């Protein structure tokens, strides 16, 4: 049974270690807007920010070119950093880039590796908290989206999605739908019927 919780709402009467929750005075409280599953003891944030983890794919824009490093704007509290020696390509400020987070340092910086320049296409901004839903279990949702619309989709965990070719309008519409209805069940089916209607 899932319920919507707000910051400061009591989740459990006993102290439990739950992501996005705090323990105070022997009880567990939520710190975010979320959907709490009482049986699985899992709190899924409905609104949230992206905390970079090594291995995350991100999409960003080159903000500065400093000869040995590129600084990447990830539209997050973290900056991205690409060392020129890690890159086969040369970038200029304003280029779109896809990369993977290699490591984090203490100064709000994510060091990125495996950069790839993205040319053309379109960007869609979504809430970072909805990314797991957009990917779906085992990337099921995004695979279906790509297959049915023949669009190149690169999902950045930081909430930026890059699209190219195929049915841009249809994919954008589907992404919007996923974002708005992320906390409901039966979503995959509805997205599939949207794609079939549009195709």
């Amino acid at each position, binding site marked *: 049974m899932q319920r919507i919780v*707000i*910051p400061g709402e009591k989740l459990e009467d006993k102290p439990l270690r739950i992501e996005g929750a705090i323990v105070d005075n022997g009880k567990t409280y939520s*710190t975010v*807007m979320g959907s709490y599953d009482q049986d699985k003891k899992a709190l899924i944030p409905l*609104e949230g920010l992206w905390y970079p983890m090594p291995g995350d794919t991100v999409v960003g824009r080159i903000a500065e070119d400093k000869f040995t490093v590129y600084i990447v704007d990830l539209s997050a509290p973290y900056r991205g950093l690409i060392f020129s020696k890690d890159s086969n390509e040369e970038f200029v400020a304003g280029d779109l880039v896809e990369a993977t987070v290699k490591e984090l340092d203490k100064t709000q910086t994510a060091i990125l590796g495996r950069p790839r320049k993205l040319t053309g296409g379109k960007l869609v901004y979504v809430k970072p908290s909805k990314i797991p839903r957009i990917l779906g*279990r085992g990337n099921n949702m995004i695979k279906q989206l790509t297959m049915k619309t023949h669009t190149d989709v690169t999902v950045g965990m930081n909430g930026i999605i890059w699209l190219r070719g195929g049915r841009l309008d249809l994919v954008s519409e589907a992404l919007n739908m996923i974002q708005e209805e992320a*906390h409901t069940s039966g979503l995959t089916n509805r997205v599939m019927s949207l794609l079939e209607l549009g195709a």
Partner: protein
Amino acid sequence: MITMASSQEKPQLIVDGKRLDGRDAGDLRPISIQTNVVKNAVGSAYIEWGNNKIIAAVYGPKEALPKHTANPERAVIKCRYAMSPFSSLEDHGRTGPNRRATEISKVTREVFENVVMLEKFPGSEIDIYVEVLQADGGTRAAGVTAAAVAMATSGIPMTDLPFGVSIGKIGETIVVDLNKIEDNYSDADVPMVISPRQDKILLLQMDGNMTKDNIKEAIDLAKKAGETISKLQSDALRAPYLEVMEKYKGEKSSYDEKQAD
């Protein structure tokens, strides 16, 4: 412009046990809250509290600028409370921050420094904007109430959802939620912000005189009024989600719907 009468010619604020707008001593004005009203903000809220109309917006966390304001251990909060030039009968909101706006910005900032989990975002800043469009007394309390909802919609983790309310003293009666006229002519005006879960007072200012017993009664009244306000905040936050959930209620999926996180 209406000139304010001197405090000698005090209007009668309580007639036959009812206040000027027909409320009892413990009644709040009607409150409605809406979320996500500013598209560019990370989180935002709009509150109508009696005749008060206030927009609150939250931006960030982002890189703290200028650099010297950054704290390498925690995020810093920057708050701007402002009244629009057209918001009130007096000349509030002339260009630039004034003494009053600076003070309210400071106390609002300190409220949120106590509930936002700043240690999660070292070196960054979180901006809170509270913009008063129409003022009728108690704007700092209403502003904090709205900003708390805005902060919750932004997804920035908070340990609690604070609310604000002002308590006043008219003659010997302690009353809840003063409006503009009552604020001007009351014997005391005590705006309060309370963190209901932790049962802590995060803001308490006093204009006028109250006895120790008065203050105790005021705090009790504020907590009681807070139950209503907290309920409204929570309803406003849940409403958009429950609406969508209601629409697709009972629909089951052939896929396992668990999120892959």
